[in-house]
């Protein structure tokens, strides 16, 4: 495989990109190597055949014209070119600065200058005049509790009376209906009883007549 290293050199030689030193070395090798000599001849021929293929014209009329862009498309193009990370970093930084400035408090009191800066404490900051003591707060809580308990008690009593009255009414109504129904049932039973007794008497009489008739016949 001694020719392996000359393959690269062969390319340089054919296309005339070989250094003088390598050229001498390669030409010496060519004198002894029929394989490389054959390659050189064949590649030159191949190269010649390839060069018979002439360039073609694309027959295209490619023309670019300036296109006036709107500020929005300019902004959009610029935006696209900004890398996401850098863009996010800028945005985050801007938000931090905005929050800091919007929460800044400068005070000059008794000739002393003081400055407060914070990110999220704007809404939590309260005027000292609005503070209430713990006792006042407890007292307010107790008052609230008493009020709520009284409301609940009143409401319960009122509710109980109403319920009792409602139940009384209901009981009376049910009792009245029951008496009516009992009276009707009693009447019905009495009627059935008297009717049955009459029929029994009639039957007994008929039976006695029949017995008498039979006795008479036997005699």
């Amino acid at each position, binding site marked *: 495989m001694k020719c392996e290293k000359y*393959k*690269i050199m*062969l*390319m*340089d030689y054919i*296309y005339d*990109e070989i250094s003088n030193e390598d050229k001498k070395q390669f030409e010496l090798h060519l004198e002894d190597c029929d394989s490389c000599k054959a*390659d050189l001849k*064949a*590649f030159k*021929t*191949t*190269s*010649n*055949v*390839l*060069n*018979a*293929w*002439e*360039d*073609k*014209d*694309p027959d*295209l009329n*490619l*023309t*670019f*014209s*300036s296109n006036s862009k709107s500020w929005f498309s300019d902004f959009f193009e610029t935006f696209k070119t900004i890398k996401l990370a850098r863009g996010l970093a800028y945005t985050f930084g801007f938000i931090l600065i905005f929050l800091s400035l919007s929460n800044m408090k400068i005070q000059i009191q008794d000739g002393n200058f003081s400055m407060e800066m914070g990110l999220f404490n704007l809404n939590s900051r309260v005027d000292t005049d609005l503070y209430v003591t713990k006792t006042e707060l407890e007292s307010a809580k107790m008052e609230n509790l008493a009020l709520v308990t009284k409301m609940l008690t009143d409401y319960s009593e009122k509710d109980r009376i109403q319920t009792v009255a409602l139940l009384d009414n209901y009981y009376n109504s049910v009792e009245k209906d029951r008496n009516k129904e009992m009276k009707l049932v009693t009447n019905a039973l009495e009627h059935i009883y008297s009717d049955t007794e009459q029929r029994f008497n009639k039957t007994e009489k008929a039976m006695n007549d029949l017995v008498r008739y039979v006795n008479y016949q036997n005699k």
Partner: protein
Amino acid sequence: MKDEILIKKFISGNVSAFNTLVWRWQKPIYNFIYRYIGDEDIAKDILQQTFIRAYKSLSKLKDHSKFSTWLFQIALNQSKTELMKKKRTMVSIDEFHDDDGSASKRPKQVLIDPDLRPEHTSYNENLSNLLKDALQHIPSDQRVVIVMKEYHGLKFTEISEILREPINTVKSRMYYGLNSLRKILQKWDLDKEDLVYEM
């Protein structure tokens, strides 16, 4: 006017300077793409895409003296994408063999016999078509090196820069590419030097 000057003019807002660059480079870039892809219509599409992309991103090119290298890189990337889409099936180099398996002389016969050529095609057009077919039979990484070297006369260092490959890899691909082409042309009996002079 040098490319660098035209690029500066374009960046400062002169669009006609870019049109001059297009006019100057469209033929070589088109022929590069066509020989690499092997299809005229697709090559025209890729040519347009190449210049549109160049138009959009020329302002980002740092070294203006590398314009042609950069343009070849864009064209090559676009062509590679197209080749991936097409998934071109490689045709066997025995395509022109007869049914009995013997090597046919048909390509050469078609070339030299006017009666066998397709209508309205010259000897030269036919030879170009055969060479196009021959190039399509070799691997694309060898083909691109051969096209850049043989048809655009680029130095191996320039090809290495465009392909972003080591220079010896480029030379090796050139060697194996030429070797494959030689075999194909031998099979088709198109390896005789005198063939070129029959034109």
